[in-house]
């Protein structure tokens, strides 16, 4: 230990610094009784040092989980090393209000803490010091970045009109279903469909009403299979995955959707304008389907067949018998 000569006046202003520094300082003994309680702690807790001193930490602050805190502080006593807690583990140790009560965007203060050993003259660690840092701003901007990233991902992978996946967002789901079902040998079917006469419809009733039809189809799909498995693949082409369903079951589902699409025409007065209908292609997952891409091609071939055969109908892709 280096010998430092400290005047009584120096101690006075050192104490002043500890009192006014903008981090919380708490000294605890082996029994977790409070020995030091600086100005930061006093201001935020509204408990004066006189009142805090000698009190047990866990009795005074019931929000601190005793077992959890002991787990962090025992190594400090035993190993004489520092330990740390970060706000990602537990947002705060002491339940303090945000230090910017008006413009701060969270109600409570996020805290990081360091727990450091305090050696006595005989080199034993009988006391520890808990340092509390206010990291609310860091936590808030982390959350902002996370939200911004989520928004960007959504813009990239979601269709804003229908709320369904776009092609880029859906393809990973398709590949995942393909891989999982092929590996487990589970049934799964894929449906693609295309609206018939959509261009004529749009031309007659206007784009706004056309968009309304697309948006209604989105709602239909959301209700039938959920947002996770359905997509607007482009223009007026849609796709959906039906895990657990074989070809016949998927065809029945496609027929149900086809009839539901017909109902979207109710209220359109002009009989000279062709109705909105849809043609469906269904492909079950066969053992010899080699890739998700090939699977999608099967469904597209079936869809093409349905179009060629007069539209407003469903075709089930016939796999070659083994």
């Amino acid at each position, binding site marked *: 230990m280096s010998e430092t000569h400290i005047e009584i006046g120096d101690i006075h202003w050192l104490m002043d610094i500890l009192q006014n520094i903008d981090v919380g300082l708490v000294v605890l003994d082996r029994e977790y009784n409070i020995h030091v309680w600086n100005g930061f702690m006093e201001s935020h807790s509204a408990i004066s040092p006189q009142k805090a001193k000698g009190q047990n930490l866990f009795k005074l602050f019931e929000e601190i989980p005793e077992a959890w805190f002991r*787990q*962090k502080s*025992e*190594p400090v006593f*035993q*190993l*004489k*090393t*520092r*330990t*740390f*807690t*970060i706000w*990602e*583990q537990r947002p705060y140790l002491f339940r303090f209000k945000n230090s910017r009560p008006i413009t701060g965007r969270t109600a409570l203060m996020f805290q*990081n803490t*360091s727990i450091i050993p305090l050696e006595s003259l005989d080199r034993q660690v009988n006391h520890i010091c808990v340092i509390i*840092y206010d990291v609310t701003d860091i936590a808030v901007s*982390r959350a902002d*970045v*996370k939200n911004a990233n989520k928004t960007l991902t959504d813009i990239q992978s979601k269709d804003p009109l229908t709320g369904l996946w776009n092609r880029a967002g859906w393809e990973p789901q398709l590949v995942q279903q393909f891989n999982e079902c092929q590996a487990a040998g589970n049934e799964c079917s894929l449906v693609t469909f295309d609206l018939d006469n959509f261009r004529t419809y749009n031309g007659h009733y206007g784009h706004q009403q056309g968009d309304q039809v697309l948006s209604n189809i989105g709602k239909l799909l959301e209700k039938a299979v959920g947002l996770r498995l359905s997509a607007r693949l482009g223009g007026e082409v849609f796709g959906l995955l039906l895990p657990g369903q074989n070809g016949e079951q998927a065809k029945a589902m496609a027929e149900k959707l086809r009839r539901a699409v017909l109902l979207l025409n109710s209220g359109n007065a002009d009989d000279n304008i062709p109705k909105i209908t849809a043609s469906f292609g269904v492909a079950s997952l066969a053992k010899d389907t080699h890739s998700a891409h090939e699977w999608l091609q099967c469904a597209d071939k079936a869809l093409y067949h349905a179009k060629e055969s007069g539209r407003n109908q469903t075709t089930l892709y016939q796999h070659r018998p083994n």
Partner: protein
Amino acid sequence: MSAAHEILNEDQRDCYQELTNVAMGQAADRLARLLDAYVVLPIPRVNIIECSDLHMAIQDAETDSAVSAVCQGFIGSGIAGEALLLFNDTSFADLAKLMSYTGPLTRQAELELLMDVSSILIGACTHGIGEQLEIHFTQGHPVVLGQHCKVDDILKSGNQQWQRTLAIEIHYTIEHVNIECDLLLLFTEDSVARLNQKIDFLLD
């Protein structure tokens, strides 16, 4: 700037090795008492590490979900560096047993375990080394890598002006449980010169 091709001579390397050995001996004893488990006394390796080696080590932590990494900066007497703790094939269930943690192993619980274990392992080692060199290292708050950002982004950030530097590698294993991890103490290039001065003083 002096070229870094001769960072260490043989004597210095041996000295670092010995220094870490002693530090680890002390740490292992304390760790065993704290964790109530026998810590296999690791033999530290003193190495010159290339920047690209580090990239690979960190990248594993991101691409392989079985690998987790925690880093923590330390500084004292103008000697600065970062401790990097890499958990390979460590089972969280075993970590939980070691830390006597009971409760479901959620992602949150895993973070908790990583933080606790790294606080102890990194602290024990830097404290031991610092004590012998009479340096008091101040540690920053630990950061779990890859939690909030892509590791690629960290590596791309351009803060990698060094090509090769001193690394002390410690491979921890704990008996009877499936816990293996590597602790890397990396020193900045300018710190190595200062460290060598301290070491030369010990060697004389």
